């Protein structure tokens, strides 16, 4: 493997990290060529034209423009190639296809809390099966964190106030570093964990061993009742609120005439800022749950509503 020949470089372990490594190699080679040429010329000129050394100093280059134009053009073309290359890989890395195994990541000072749909939750660790794309839905409880797995050449900030999707995939079983890469306060450097990649069979074993009494969706359903959501959104209630069965992933007409897709972000916003996007035909009567639910609980509610997607409305 060519990648092992880069000094001090451990090859990346995901489909995209191969592309990143190739890009890195390309950058290294280009830089090495430029540096070699430059240092060679510097050394050559310094040696040959040192003061006192008798050598030909006549016929200095006076008209310089063709030199200037050629090295400007050469740099520009090189840079353009690198730009296009880097950009195309970048769009691959941050592509997030929909239906995959979702894992929920909540970042808070100073820990990573990860939760599998089955309710298995971990702290500063994440178990995943190999060779299968996993969609992470990440949220931050407080400040900006950054989810960084060096072995996968992958990083994304987790900004409070929004959900961030990120797709990860690991080729080889093993334990890999998970870092917080955005400075987040006192224990920033303690906010590290590990990604445990397992063979699919081992992973399902692990899932069953870890299986809690209830799934995230059912915990969300319990919260839904505890917080009183079901009082209005449940069937047969006196207050008229839009039913939530079968809503997830579908377009929702709003009272201002526009339409939104009921995705994670919309559901989250509707819980926190219920009156900003009111469903057509309903009154803006729902109170805000801002400050009353944590990111963990929010996630469970979103997952619960998502689990209602299959039900007929």
């Amino acid at each position, binding site marked *: 493997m060519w990648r092992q020949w880069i000094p001090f470089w451990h090859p990346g372990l995901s489909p995209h990290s191969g592309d990143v490594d190739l890009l890195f190699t390309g950058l290294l080679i280009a830089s090495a060529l430029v540096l070699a040429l430059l240092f060679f010329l510097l050394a050559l000129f*310094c040696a040959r034209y040192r003061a006192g050394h008798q050598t030909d100093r006549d016929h*200095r280059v006076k008209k310089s423009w063709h030199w200037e134009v050629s090295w400007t053009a050469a740099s520009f073309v090189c*840079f353009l190639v690198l730009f296009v290359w880097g950009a195309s890989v970048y769009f691959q890395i941050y592509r997030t296809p929909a239906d995959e195994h979702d894992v929920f990541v909540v970042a808070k000072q100073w820990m990573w809390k990860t939760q599998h749909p089955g309710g298995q939750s971990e702290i500063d660790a994440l178990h995943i099966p190999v060779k299968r794309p996993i969609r992470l839905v990440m949220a931050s409880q407080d400040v900006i964190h950054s989810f960084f797995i060096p*072995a996968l050449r992958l990083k994304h900030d987790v900004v409070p106030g929004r959900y961030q999707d990120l797709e990860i995939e690991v080729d080889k079983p093993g334990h890999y570093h998970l870092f917080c890469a955005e400075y987040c306060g006192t224990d920033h*450097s303690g906010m590290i964990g590990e990604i445990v990649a397992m063979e699919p069979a081992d992973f399902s074993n692990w899932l069953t061993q870890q299986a809690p009494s209830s799934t995230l969706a059912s915990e969300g359903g319990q919260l839904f009742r505890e917080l009183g959501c079901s009082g209005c959104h449940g069937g047969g209630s006196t207050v008229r609120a839009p039913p939530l069965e079968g809503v997830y992933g579908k377009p929702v007409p709003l009272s201002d005439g526009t339409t939104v897709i009921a995705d994670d972000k919309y559901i989250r916003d509707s819980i926190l800022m219920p009156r900003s996007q009111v469903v057509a035909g309903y009154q803006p009567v729902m109170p805000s749950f801002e400050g009353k639910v944590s990111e963990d609980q929010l996630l469970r509610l979103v997952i619960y509503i998502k689990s209602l997607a299959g039900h007929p409305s």
Partner: protein
Amino acid sequence: MSEKTYLTTDFTLRSWFLTTDHKRIAILYFASLIFFFFIGGAAAAAIRIELATPQADLVSSDVYNRLFTMHGIIMVWFFLIPSIPNTLGNFIVPLMIGARDLAFPRLNLMSWYIFMLGGCTTLFAIFAGGVDTGWTFYTPFSTLYSNSYVIVAAAGVFIAGFSSILTGLNFIVTIHRLRAPGLTWYRLPLFLWSLYATSVILVLATPVLAITLLLMATERFFGVGIFDPRIGGDPLLFQHLFWFYSHPAVYIMILPGMGVINELISCFSRKEVFGYKFVAWCSLAIAAVGFLVWGHHMFVSGQSLIASLVFSFMSFIVAVPSAIKVFNWTATLHKGSIHFDAPMLYALAFIGLFTIGGLTGLFLACLAFDVHATDTYFVVAHFHYIMVGGMVTAYFGGLHYWWPKITGRLYSEYWARTAAILIFFGFNLTFFPQFILGAEGMPRRYHVYPPVFQVWNVLSSGGAAILAVAYLMPLFYLGYSAFFGKRAPANPWNAPGLEWQTSSPPPEFNFETQPVVTREPYQYNERFDAEPQNA
């Protein structure tokens, strides 16, 4: 000495602290900057000692976070940004253009007082308990979660910003209006072109920093959410506003260095700078395009992919003029007559280190690799190659070059060369391992780290020890020479620039008679057959 120099016109304290002489103000700045440099340097030393082992042993996490914040704030705003412009620039600009002073001398003095006020405010914040936000003051950490003197520190930076603006304004107007007769734009030394470009950035970018810090402090003080996501604010807006200043600020920190290098390379090659007009316009191009690239600090922050694409493209574009400059400096050496005096050693070191810094900048401009490398030690190494390897090296080079003009004394060439070489090796040993650390994935601002990273950290800390000694050396031999060195002649390097046409040190109003310029700059071979006479 029969005639009076600017140093001997008056000896009272009042004559120093109420002076409007640009040369004395430059000395005031110089003294303050040495002070700040060593404070920032002390913080760096503590950081490197702490990082020699993976565990926390010297300081606690809270102290560590305050140390790197203090290192960043002091070094960026109280050393690098004012370094060359306010000391060498202040001293040399009027001399180079044949003027008797800057356009607004009282404004110049005021800018020093504002700078000191800002500096003292920041120092107060540091010694009262410190700041732990990092020099970037990212919200919502700085506004809602940090438990430290954020507002005071931001106020210090805010105040110092006005000093930058006034200096930039002064330089722009001076270079436009006070040039000696015959000194057309294409006869200006390239140092002035780059200072002009720097001033444009100072004037147009710094106010945005001021307003950003003001909004941040307002949010923190009144608890109103300007950038607070809980009431609909957007933390990324803060980053956009912050980097609108702080990325161009990087060019504030390198352009003057590039300017100095032009002077050094041509003087010690006894040859005019190759492609003068290209180098001149490249300075302005860097200043202008430098405003279009700030989003490359935010490729993983969640800004839109299209914005990332545009900013990445612009970042590659801005590298073109820098590359042109490096090629031109190299071509300048061709068929020159090269002397390896201390300033030239610094200049050669600059070319090498700046090129490495610039090339690794391309790595970071490259979107997909930046996803891996951003916020790791790769970035730390990259910007130290630019700012320390580039700017500080250029600053030392320029300082040695103009030292005879500033003090009227000659320094010890032996010690100067030793220090230059030591700085070069110490620097590379300190920062090259950090590229490897970053490529392996060690995040920046880490107080404790996994033991796999230790080898490179130890190397880096060892290099830092050498670097610390090397940076202390000039303090002694330059300090010694300022009082006991041999008297310098008016033109020790046999250079044609106007600043060498007056005595060393210059009289109070610089020139006895108004100089008139009749030729292009850097006419070394035509006017001077003699080789430079050295100390």
